[in-house]
């Protein structure tokens, strides 16, 4: 090799690298997926309107809200704006960079989850320690919300590397299983059952999609169904001395409508009284100190009451389209990491939507899971929008469809 050749080779290499960098950069600058963005924005707007409608009576009656009927709406709106900025910012980042953040994300998530369980650091509220405050500010957030993102990024990055190794127990099950168990224990310490269900659920789904042996999937599903059956359809829980008010309520929401099944009863009354067309936007009555958590976990009951089956179905269709579009993007993503990222985010939205509506309508026993884009909760909303940004970021690098 002559010097000339060597120099030429070097220049070529540099050109090659620049070309690759340019390619990568250009790929990240591709068009983001408009349907997914639009569906998100529509749901966000409807969600904000419903939050206003659902929350003003309790806000007006509450001293902690300064009797301001717009209290919840204003705060949620601010977080939505913040979240939207974050969404666009994240969507412009080449998602490949998240690979490098994966370890940090999971470590930070676990550290925060540990911190929140420590009395004095985690904020004790409603019989659980789920909140962390940022010193010097009044800002509070739930580490479990952040952990969702952490798990999604870490699992995606890790699983994407493993290919067929996922089929083995040692590589495919053991590390993730241990991690999820650790997180489950931390969540149990808060305690935060619904958060545990979601985190473990997202992780498990990513493992399944990532390619673990079907036998594990079958075993998991069998165990899940068997456990569910024993809990719900036998008196096993009563026998082991578990206070099964929730299950009793699930069986009959009106078994103790003034006390133990009050919330469920009020939810069903709200939904049922809405009928086909609903009482009209803003004209619901159940939100007037009848339905607890009406601006939160039970906001969908207000939706049904005010917009009826038609409005509720329309919103469910929008959620379904968002989820279908998400998975469609996952299928078409450029690489496995991108696919898994989108699957994680979409699954989170899907799980939360299903579980929330299923609880509110009494399809499954009550747990406290919020409805994405609807339920009041600043951090949760902002993080959901960031996650949408991640999906959109991946969507930028989807190769243009061939032909045409």
């Amino acid at each position: 090799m002559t010097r000339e050749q060597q120099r030429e080779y070097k220049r070529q290499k540099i050109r090659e690298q620049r070309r690759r960098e340019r390619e990568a950069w250009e790929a990240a600058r591709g068009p983001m997926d408009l349907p997914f963005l639009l569906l998100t924005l529509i749901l966000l707007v409807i969600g904000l309107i419903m939050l206003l409608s659902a929350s003003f009576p309790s806000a007006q009656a509450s001293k902690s809200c300064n009797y301001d009927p717009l209290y919840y709406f204003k705060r949620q709106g601010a977080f939505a704006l913040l979240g939207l900025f974050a969404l666009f910012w994240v969507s412009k980042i080449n998602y490949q960079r998240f690979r490098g953040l994966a370890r940090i994300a999971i470590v930070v998530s676990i550290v925060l989850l540990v911190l929140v369980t420590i009395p004095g650091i985690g904020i004790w509220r409603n019989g659980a320690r789920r909140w962390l405050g940022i010193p010097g500010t009044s800002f509070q957030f739930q580490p479990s919300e952040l952990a969702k993102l952490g798990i999604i990024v870490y699992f995606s990055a890790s699983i994407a590397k493993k290919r067929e190794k996922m089929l083995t127990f040692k590589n495919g099950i053991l590390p993730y299983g241990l991690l999820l168990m650790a997180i489950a224990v931390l969540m149990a310490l808060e305690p935060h059952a619904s958060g545990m269900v979601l985190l473990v659920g997202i992780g498990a789904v990513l493992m399944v999609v990532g390619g673990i042996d079907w036998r594990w999937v079958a075993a998991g599903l069998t165990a899940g169904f068997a456990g569910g059956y024993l809990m719900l359809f036998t008196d096993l829980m009563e026998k082991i001395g578990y206070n099964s008010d929730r299950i009793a309520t699930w069986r009959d929401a009106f078994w103790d409508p003034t006390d133990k099944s009050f919330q469920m009863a009020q939810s069903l009354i709200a939904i049922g009284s809405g009928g086909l067309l609903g009482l009209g936007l803003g004209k619901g009555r159940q939100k007037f100190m009848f339905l607890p958590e009406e601006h939160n976990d039970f906001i969908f009951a207000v939706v049904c009451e005010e917009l009826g089956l038609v409005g509720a179905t329309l919103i469910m269709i929008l959620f379904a389209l968002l989820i279908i579009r998400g998975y469609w993007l996952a299928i078409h993503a450029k690489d496995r990491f991108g696919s898994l990222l989108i699957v994680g985010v979409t699954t989170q939205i899907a799980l939360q939507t299903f579980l929330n509506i299923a609880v509110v309508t009494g399809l499954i026993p009550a747990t406290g899971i919020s409805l994405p884009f609807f339920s009041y909760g600043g951090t949760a909303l902002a993080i959901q929008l960031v996650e949408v940004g991640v999906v959109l970021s991946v969507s930028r690098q989807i190769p243009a469809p061939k032909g045409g």
Partner: protein
Amino acid sequence: MAKKPKRQPDAARKAKLTIQRRTLYLLMVFGVFSFLALFAKAYDLTINQHEEMQERASSQQTQSTTISASRGTIYDRNGETLAISATADTVFLDPKMIQERADELDLERAKALAEGVEDGESLPITGEEYKDLIATELSRILEIEEDTIREKMEKTWSQYEILKKRVDKEIGDEVRAFITDNVTGKNIQGIHLLSDAKRYYPHSTLASHVLGFLNNDNVGIYGLEAYYEKELEGTTGLVVTARDGNNQEIMFQYEQYYDAEDGNSLQLTIDSTIQSYLESGLEDMIARFDAANGATGIVMDPNSGAILAMASSPSYDLNDPWAIYDTRLQAQLDELLTGGNTEETAATDGETDESAEGEASEETETSSEDATSDAYNKLLGELQLKQWRNKAVNDTYEPGSTYKILTLSMALEEGTVNLNSTFNCTGSIKVDGWTIGCSKRAGHGTQTLTEAVGNSCNPAFINIGFSVGTEIYHKYMEAFGLFDKSGVDLQGEAVGIHASADTFTQLDLATYSFGQNFTVTPLQMIAAQAACINGGYLYTPYLVEKELDGDGNVLSQHDATPVRQVISEETSATVRQILEYVVSNGTGKNGQVAGYRIGGKTGTADKSGTKDPINNPQGDVVVSFLCFAPADDPQVIMLLTMDTPSRTTGTYVSGGNMVAPTASSIMSNILPYLGIAPEYTEEEIGYADATVPYVVGMTEEEAAAKLASYGFENYRTVGDGATVTDQTPLGGAIVPANAEIILYMGAEKSTELCTVPNVIGMSASNANKALTNAGLIIKTTGASTSDARVITQSLEAGAQVAAGTVVTVQMGQAGTTAD
């Protein structure tokens, strides 16, 4: 397609395919199936369970406040108010709140004392003083025992203790004033008033059985108040407001307002003037003959069935219906009490007040033995039912001889008898082996039809009945409406007992023909009798002429179409003619009214089941009298019955002797009132009333001329002045035209009182003499035949009255003839 995609290693491609395939499964599960499940559940709730949930929702989300409708007013035929509603207040205590306030006051006082406030203006009263204040003031305003209030105040767990129901507005206002303005300087807490409606009956006892009254919930339970409950009550209005989970009204939420619709008013056929004539007549009659089981009276327009008056005795006060009103009934109560425990008499006075709340039975917690109070309450309940009973409609009786009018009508209509028929009475008649006696044991001998009716001869009527025959007779009874309710607009109308068509025997016919062995209500009876004399038309008796709305618009008007024509106009005319004879010449002579042609029929009926040969050998009877006037063109018909008159009054027990004079006296008031002009015969002229002219200031000649022009021929002067300075009776007084007018010519009118002489038993002319001599003026009513004697006088003998006072004497025959 310039660039070929970079070829990936096999393993990577495989891994990506796995991810894609499994994501597709997820898409199906989370994107489609889960939402189908959610939709199915939402559909079930919003559609299938919609109604149930909506019901649950509205029951918890709404609260309704009722707006009471004003109950309709009841007017008599001339617009006189008989029943009207007004707002009243129910006063109740909230003992819990009172206790709280008392505790608060104690605390405040302790605090004030601690701060060194001296006893005076700014020192709050003690809690105990607060309670005392409430008890004493309310006791004064509401007229309740202070102890009762204290007792209720001690029930501090309660928030609702009624002190007094439906007090008048003025008393309610007084309570309100006490709450806001009192010595504590602050509003009294724990006394509440609840607006309510109270029914007022301006005439108290008048037409009590017709009007009826309301229970505690303002629902009519007797009389027209009950029968026309729907029309009178109106529609309660409703405000439905949304409320939130804390029971607060949601102001900006929906509000539904259903107007209260006031009840409709009723205009009755009852004429309160005629009603009062009837009631006072009955009262006098019962008092005179000591009737054990009261009396009834019905005055009806025979040409429409409109009831002008309907009375039943014993009566009661509509404004206090639970209190025993009749002295005879009250005496039974008193007897029980004095017989049991004398101390309780004091308690009863309080008791009667309490009974206005209808809770008499609960309130009787006196110290006396329970047995006495049980018996007392039982008797009280029985007596209450007795006094509320409208015997003219709710009770049946064997009509007796007044019923003979019907037998007569049937036979005349069927042509089986006529005015030329004759009947022979031997004093008894044998029917199917049974001997039925005539009231005149010796027999009436041979009589014409008219005479037989005039004599009220039973054997004659048996023959008249027989001439009609069982089958047709029974059909006529049905046609006269005796087997059905009359259809009057009152509830609880009774129907009597009678033989059915296929069991109606000849023996039944024999007794039925003179009105025995079957029962009817007085109202059924008068309706049928009216049909006999009004041209043959059976009308449904009725009490409500018009239904009016709040503005007086007529909503409905009674349609007085006859039910059917039972007999012909001609037959009816003959019946009238015969019945006029009964009053002018027969058993009904005491029913005569001077100046009027009266038709009528007397009756003395054995009461079924009372002919107990050992205990009651004579048998209790119902005496009655039916009369109508004018006899040739009846405008008014009246039936009076009296149940079980005493046999020891000296008057022979019969309708003609006991009831007819009362009927005459009532009719003598009703007929002029109805504007039916009297036509006096020559011998009756003295009975005619005339208005005394005002002659003061005139000379004697002028005065005499004026008096003569008014029909007064007799006058005398006192004093010797030139002009009349005073007169007795005063100008405007209505007195019989044969009265002597005293003109004072300058002399002072004597202030000396005159003593009323006893004129009972005298002839009309003798009585006139006696009373005129005493300085009084006679007004005669009743029988005008030459053998008539004074039966009653309106002022008792020995009474001291002013000169010129009119003394009404009832003429009649103290005969011993049975009806």
